[in-house]
Every structure is written in structure tokens, then in C-alpha cells.
């Protein structure tokens, strides 16, 4: 509210242009972020790749661990940013299984009756998955939610879903490179491959 009041106060200026720096810092700082860690009881990450069924099961287990906290966040805020793909968060297990299949090299059918089967739908599903994880983590007891970079670090580097998204990126990138090679080194006319990993997190965690 203070941000909005400060902004509206600029309307009182009698001449311009008016450029004012908002004097207060955001609640999440690099210092507070450095000590934030997710305390939700996620299953441990196992190194290396997993067979598809094992990956699906462990991903479903992770999603199941987050479910009560996502639901609590929904109860508290009475809203969610989940839903871009057109399905509700009840479909998280199906979404997780679908993404695990894609990450493992399968070509699973788009579940949940979604009519849009374009690669762009994977982008929408990714945003919904991020919303699910981050809203659950925000609701965790005993800490203030961190800033975006720390939250992304947790999601991409410390969860199984993050690892699955790296696998999806690597699969699509490799397939695109193969098509480019088959096209005599010329990039294909199709759109560049879907990449669910932000530039800041291009490198996989060690």
C-alpha cells in the first residue's frame, strides 16, 4: 500500500518530468535469501538418471509431499496462479507423470483432455508446475518467502521436478541439433526447441 500511496503522491507535482526513487528496500534481500531453505519434507534426490517408472514414482512422491502445503497456501490466500494450461491443480499427478515421460524420451499423449498438443503447451504446464511448487514453498512454516532468485535455485537445483525440466531441455536441444544436422547444418524452419530453464540457470547443478 505504501508503494501505491508514494506513487499517487507524485500526482501532486506541479511540473515535470517527475522521477523519484522509492526509498525502501524489498523485504527479501540477498542476505535473508542466503539463509532460506525449504523445510518441506521432500524425498532425497538420487544422483544420475533413473529408469522411467522409478522417475515417475519419485516425482509423484515429491508432488505428494508438496500437496498439503499447496492446499494450505490456497486456503490462506484464496487464490492461485496455477491454471495457465487450462487444468486445475488436481491434475498435478498427471502433469508430473506426463513431464517425466517427456524427460525420459517418451512421447506421451497430452493428458487431461487438453486439446492443445503444441510444444508450447509444455511451457504452460511448466509455469503451472512452478506455481504449484513455489506457492507450496511460500506457505512453509517458520520463514518468510525468499526473493525470486533463491526460490528459482530451490526449484531448479534442489527438486526432482527441476531435474526433470533440465532433462526435457536436453532432450529437445539434442533432437533439434539432429534435425539441424540432417538439414545440412541449416537450422530448420520450425520454431526453436522449448527450453524451460532460465538463462541464469543454464548450467546444471553439480
Amino acid at each position: 500500500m505504501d508503494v501505491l500511496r508514494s506513487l499517487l503522491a507524485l500526482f501532486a507535482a506541479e511540473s515535470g518530468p517527475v522521477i523519484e526513487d522509492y526509498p525502501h528496500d524489498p523485504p527479501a534481500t540477498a542476505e535473508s535469501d542466503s539463509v532460506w531453505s525449504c523445510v518441506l519434507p521432500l524425498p532425497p534426490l538420487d544422483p544420475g538418471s533413473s529408469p522411467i517408472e522409478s522417475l515417475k514414482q519419485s516425482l509423484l512422491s515429491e508432488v505428494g509431499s508438496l500437496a498439503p502445503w499447496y492446499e494450505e497456501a490456497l486456503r490462506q490466500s484464496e487464490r492461485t496462479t496455477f491454471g495457465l494450461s487450462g487444468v486445475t491443480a488436481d491434475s498435478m499427478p498427471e502433469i508430473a507423470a506426463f513431464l517425466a515421460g517427456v524427460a525420459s524420451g517418451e512421447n506421451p499423449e497430452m493428458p487431461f483432455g487438453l486439446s492443445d498438443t503444441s510444444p508450447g503447451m509444455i511451457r504452460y504446464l511448466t509455469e503451472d508446475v512452478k506455481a504449484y511448487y513455489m506457492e507450496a514453498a511460500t506457505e512453509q512454516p517458520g520463514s518468510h518467502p525468499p526473493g525470486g532468485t533463491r526460490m528459482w535455485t530451490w526449484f531448479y537445483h534442489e527438486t526432482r521436478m527441476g531435474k526433470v525440466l533440465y532433462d526435457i531441455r536436453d532432450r529437445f536441444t539434442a533432437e533439434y541439433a539432429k534435425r539441424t544436422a540432417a538439414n545440412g547444418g541449416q537450422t530448420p524452419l520450425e520454431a526453436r526447441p522449448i527450453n524451460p530453464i532460465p538463462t541464469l540457470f543454464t548450467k546444471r547443478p553439480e
Partner: protein
Amino acid sequence: MVRLTDLPEEYAAHLLSLPMPDYGPTPWAEAPDLKDARVAIISTAGLHRSSDAKFYGGAGDYRLLPGDLDYSDLTMSHVSVNFDRSGYQQDTNVVFPLERLRQLESDGEIGSVAKWHYSFMGATDPTRMIETGPQVAKLLKEDNVTAAILIPI
């Protein structure tokens, strides 16, 4: 808006490298007394109602958001992977402070909240809004809006 010094180096460098369009001088307009102002929000967060068409990257069109909007009906289809949604996930008012405006209206700090608010796609070349920008200006006038808050996301 975040300070450049608080951004990761790559992002700050990218922002600084963007061209700055020159729109010429803009005449100074005297603002209304806030207690009489009718206020609208114009956001570039790629927001829309769930039943609206999604935005695509670089789109220059806009979506209408009603003043009595229920936030649970709000969707953001700005899907760049580099787009940090964490603030929006924690509080929608960070990108679209309609609830806060309603509160200011109810406290008598502003005159009224506009009937309609407007949402554009972020990261769009502003020249793609040459037609839709004036359209929105006309609609704001029709709604008797006297103050608009532009929220770049």
C-alpha cells in the same frame, strides 16, 4: 521497480542495451486532486481473465480487466522462462494493485476506481502498440478516468 544494481549482471546489461525510443516532448498535464480522481491501472504483466485468449510473445494487443475482477479469475500468460513470477505468486497486487485501489477508494483517498483496466504483454516492442495505445486512451476517456497508473512488468 527493481534497481539495476540489484539485478543479476547479465539482466542489467541486457536492459541497458535496449534501444530507447524517442517519442518527442510530452506536454505537462496537471493532475486532478486525488480525492476526486478516477483511477485506472494499465499493466504490462500479460494478465487476463481465464476465459480470454492468451497473449503470445511480442503481442501488441490488450485485454480488458473489469474493476470488479475477482483475482481468482486472473491468469498471466507471459511465459518467458526468464520472467520472475515469484512476486506475483505471493501477492497479485505487486503487478496489478486493484485490491489496494479499492481500499483507497473505500478510505476516501481517491475518488473512484475505473470500470475497466487494461493489460498488455510485457517485453513487446512499443511500436507494436501504436494503434492499440490510442484506443486505450480513448476508452479511458469514455470511462471518465482522470489518472492512470502504468505498471511496467
